[in-house]
């Protein structure tokens, strides 16, 4: 998957976790936490959704990479490089 597809994957996950949030104006360079109501339980869910859907393992000390959309996509790009889009 390429970065634009990975971004969509993360957006889909956020939508599933927080269906009442409006994500159309999400700023990719600003922390999720500052734009949405996300707590530690929700971050754990992002990690678990990625594991469920793409078998990506994210160790606990690397959660800090999931702060903004930009940092998340950067972090996931090598991990999802071999995963075909639309899986």
């Amino acid at each position, binding site marked *: 998957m390429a970065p634009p597809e990975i971004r969509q994957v993360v957006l889909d996950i956020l939508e*599933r*976790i*927080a*269906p*009442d*949030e409006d994500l159309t104006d999400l700023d990719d360079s600003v922390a999720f936490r500052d734009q*949405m*109501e996300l*707590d530690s*339980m*929700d971050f*754990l*869910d992002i990690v*678990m959704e990625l594991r*469920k859907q793409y078998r990506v393992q994210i160790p606990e000390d690397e959660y800090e990479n999931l702060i903004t959309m930009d940092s998340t996509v950067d972090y996931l790009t090598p991990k999802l490089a071999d995963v075909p889009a639309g899986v």
Partner: protein
Amino acid sequence: MRYHTVIIGAGMSGLAAGIRLAYYEKPVCILERHTTIGGLNSFYRLRGRNYDVGLHAVTNYAEPGTRTGPLAKLLKQLRLRWDDFDLSPQNGSSVVFPGYRIPFANDFAAFVENVCDVFPQQADRFRKLVIHINDYDETSLSNEPASARQVLSEFLSDRTLIDMLFCPLMFYGSATPHDMDFSQFCIMFKSIFEEGFARPFKGVRQILKKLTRHYKELGGELKLRHGVREIMVEDGRTTGVILDDGTEIEAEHVLSSAGHVETLRLVNGEWKMENGAEGVLHAQYSIPPSGEISFNEAIFVLDCQPRELGHDETIVFYNDAQQFHYEPPTEPLDLRSGIICSPNNFRYADGEQLDEGYIRITSLADPDYWMSLPDDEYYPAKEEWGRRMVESAIQHIPDFRDHIIDTDIFTPRTIKKFTGHLKGAVYGAPRKVLDGTTGIDNLFLCGTDQGFLGIIGAMLSGITMANNHLLR
């Protein structure tokens, strides 16, 4: 088949935990001894009518679209939408003591003003207490136990006000007599006074059926009429359960909502009673004390809406004595205090209204009395004490006795039958196990003895234990 997790009990906490596990594709099975789901909060049909048991109101109410707080967190974790629970807010409730009445609705600022109006001498002190409560992180799993009475007495000097604040919080969640743990006090204070009451139009079945459908759609298994006789343990680690009929079910983890003592009693092995009960020989696990707070509730069906009799309050918490006594009574019931709830008195969407009127009256009960009565005395005693409960309640609401068309009453014996809690302890054991561990590897607790309270709390308990212990 070997499950990732077997969950004991299809109540709010077990179903919520099951949804989390099933959502993340763990093979999970919920075992429920009874013919129906729900446990303490359940529903039934009797003589052609729907009844709820347990739930008077859902606490922790939040307006649709609210993105913070326990209800929002719960919905996100379960991947449910706000509409799924169909909550309608209360009309308004009150705490009534001799000479004092504090009304409250789902408007915390108004509640604070009402307290300050009724107790002007305590106003500044009360506002400081509210700040202290709001700054306190009551859901931290590492909080040390602290006496709420001790904390409140550091802020407030009026015993009546302290008792009036305790009254609804104790009635709706305290497993301990006289006092509460301060964390538990804060959970209840926020869920009742700051957030408030609501109810689905269809009652608790709306929530339970939604949870069950969601759980099954995610691939979770639910087995009714499957009671657990024993939790298998080898080398300090659980390996599964044995059913009442002797069938063994293997599981990597067991999550039990049966209660702390009740769960440990299912473990094969030997015991020591803590606080030195006699006859103890060899100690492998220690057994904590079980709870003793239980209630009778009389549910009256009326031929009219309570509003037509001049009663439109949702819940009245009353106490007629000089001091509020929250403890197992020496009489079969304590008629000095109680809860009066009308499920009609919520603001249902589009002005919809339940077909018939309901009044539910709840009183503290002596579990030993109701457990030990022979059947031929039990049924007449329920009726007789039900009559006395009404006499006590109509000091506070209009006399509705001429309008009663049906009655059903439950006692500690009923609660024990449906929850398995020893003595019918509604809120479980006095000492909670916040981290849910049992001393046995891979055996965890959820539900009332883990310690999050109320309907929303029960579901959050299942979610938190699943997240912390079973999904890492």
